C-alpha cells in the first residue's frame, strides 16, 4: 500500500517536472526552428530596412544593452543598500523595515504597463527626459528593484549567524563584517537575483514603449530614443506584415543573450565572492561538502 502510494506520488512529481521541462524545451526549440533561418552576421551587424523586414537589428541590440546598463547601474547599488538595511533588522517584526518590505511586495506585483505609464509621466515628462534610453533604463530600474532587494535581502539573511558571532567576538566593525564576511558569502544568492532581474528587464516591452520609445535608429546618447529587442519583437510580430521571421530571429537572439548573461553573472559572482573572501572559486564549490 505504502509503496504503491510512494510510486504514485513519485510518478506525479516526476511527470510534473518533465512537463515543465518539456514546455521550456518546446518554446526554445520552436523559437530556434523558426528564427534560425533569418539569423546571420548581416542580421547582427546591419540596421533594419523596410520597417525591419530586411536588414538587421544592430542599433536595436545597442539600445537594448544601453537600457539594461542604465537599469543595472541605477538599481544594483540602491538594492544592495536597501537589502543591507532590511537584513540588519533581524529581530524586529514591525517598524519601518516591515513597512518597506510590504511596500516592495506590492511594488513587485504592479503590472509593467503601470510602470511604463509612471515612467512616462515621471521621467519623460516631469523630469524632462523625453523618450530616451535614460528614461527607459530608469523605469526598468524601478521595476526590477523589488526583485533585486528581495533576493539580496534573503541572501544576506541566509549567511550563518555563526559568522556574525565570530566577527563580533573578534571586535570587527559592522562595516568590515558586512564587506569582508557577509557580502562575499551572500554573493551567489545576489547573483541569482541579478539574473532574475536582468531576465525581467530584457523581456520587458510594455514599460519601454512609453519611455524609451520605438524608433529603430541607433541612439546617439543616453538622451536619445531607442527600441529594445522585446519592443522590436512585438512590433515585427503585431504591426509589420511578413515580419514573423525577423521577430523569431530576434527572439532567438534575445534568448541566447539571456542564457549567456546568466552564465556570465553566475561565474563572475562566484569568482568575486572567492576573491573578496580570499579563496579560490574551487573552494567555494567544495564548501557545501565540508
Amino acid at each position, binding site marked *: 500500500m505504502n509503496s504503491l502510494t510512494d510510486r504514485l506520488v513519485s510518478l506525479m512529481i516526476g511527470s510534473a517536472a518533465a512537463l515543465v521541462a518539456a514546455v521550456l524545451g518546446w518554446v526554445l526549440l520552436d523559437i530556434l526552428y523558426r528564427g534560425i533561418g533569418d539569423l546571420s552576421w548581416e542580421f547582427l551587424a546591419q540596421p533594419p530596412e523596410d520597417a525591419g523586414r530586411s536588414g538587421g537589428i544592430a542599433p536595436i541590440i545597442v539600445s537594448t544593452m544601453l537600457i539594461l546598463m542604465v537599469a543595472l547601474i541605477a538599481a544594483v547599488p540602491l538594492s544592495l543598500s536597501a537589502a543591507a538595511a532590511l537584513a540588519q533588522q533581524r529581530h524586529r517584526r514591525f517598524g519601518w523595515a516591515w513597512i518597506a518590505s510590504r511596500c516592495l511586495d506590492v511594488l513587485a506585483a504592479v503590472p509593467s504597463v503601470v510602470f511604463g505609464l509612471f515612467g512616462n509621466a515621471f521621467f519623460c515628462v516631469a523630469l524632462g527626459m523625453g523618450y530616451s534610453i535614460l528614461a527607459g533604463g530608469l523605469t526598468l530600474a524601478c521595476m526590477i528593484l523589488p526583485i533585486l532587494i528581495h533576493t539580496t535581502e534573503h541572501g544576506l539573511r541566509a549567511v550563518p549567524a*555563526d559568522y556574525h558571532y565570530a566577527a*563580533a567576538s573578534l*571586535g570587527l*566593525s559592522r562595516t568590515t563584517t558586512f564587506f569582508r564576511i557577509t557580502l562575499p558569502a551572500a554573493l551567489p544568492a545576489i547573483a541569482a537575483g541579478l539574473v532574475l532581474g536582468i531576465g525581467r528587464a530584457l523581456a520587458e516591452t510594455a514599460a519601454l514603449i512609453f519611455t524609451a520609445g520605438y524608433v529603430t535608429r541607433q541612439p546617439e546618447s543616453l538622451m536619445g530614443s531607442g527600441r529594445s529587442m522585446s519592443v522590436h519583437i512585438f512590433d515585427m510580430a503585431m504591426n509589420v506584415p511578413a515580419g514573423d521571421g525577423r521577430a523569431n530571429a530576434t527572439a532567438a537572439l534575445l534568448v541566447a543573450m539571456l542564457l549567456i548573461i546568466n552564465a556570465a553573472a553566475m561565474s563572475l559572482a562566484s569568482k568575486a565572492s572567492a576573491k573578496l573572501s*580570499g579563496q579560490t572559486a574551487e573552494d567555494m564549490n567544495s*564548501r557545501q561538502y565540508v
Partner: protein
Amino acid sequence: MIQTQSLSVYYGDKQAVRDVTFHAPAGKITAIVGPSGCGKSTFLSSLNRMTDLIPSARIEGQVIVNCCDVQDRNRSPAELRRCVGMIFQKPNPFAMSIRNNIQLAVREHGQRDRQQLNQITESVLRDVGLWDEVKDRLDDSALKLSGGQQQRLCIARALALKPSILLMDEPCSALDPIASATVEALILSLKERYTILIVTHNLAQARRISDEVAMFWMNDGAGEIIEQGPTETVFSKPNHPIAAAYFAGTSG
C-alpha cells in the same frame, strides 16, 4: 581576572541568569558546569557583551574584566572583545584562507605591516600546534581543514589579538574524541598566559583541566551558581546537595 557582582541577564521579561557573583582568578582555568539551558552560555556571553547582539537582552549588576567595568558605555565593545577572546561550540572559521582568518581582525585593530602580520600568524599557529600542519597551505580555504583543526584555527584567530582572557563555550563538544583531546591539551598549554573560562558538559574534562569550578543550576526558571570553589574541593566535597548528586551522576 574576571569578577561579577550580582549579575542578572534578562531576555525581554524572562530572566536567564540570576544574581551571579563570581570570580575567575588570573592565569587559571575556571570551568563552568551544569545541565543544558541553565544559563551558562548566556553568562559567558554577557562577559564580553556579546549579549549586545540580542536586542531584547538586558544586563543588571556588575561585570569587571581586568579591573574595568564592562558595562561602561565609554568603553567600546570592540576594544573589550579584543582583550577577551571567545571560542564557540561549533568551529566557525570564516569562508576565507587560513591566513586571512587570522589576519583580518589583526588588521582591523590597526596592525598593517605585512611582516608583522605574518610573524603573528606563524606564532599563533605554532601556539595552537597547527603550524606544521598548515604552513604550506596558508592561502587555502580554512573550510578545508578538519573540525579539530578548524577549532584550533579559531583559537589561534582569537590569540592573534593578544587577549588576556579566553572564553570558551563547550569548545570540544562538536569534535571527535581524538580532536577533542588535542584541543584539551592545547587549552591546558595556554593556562598561565591567559585567564580561561570554559563551559563544559564533560565533568571528567572539567576535573582534568580546571583549577576552579562554578556550577550553574536552574532555579525558578533562571540560572544561578549553586557551588563554586577549587576544583578538587568542589568535586570531592560539594556543599550543595544538588551539586553532590550531579557530580555523583544521580541527578541532572
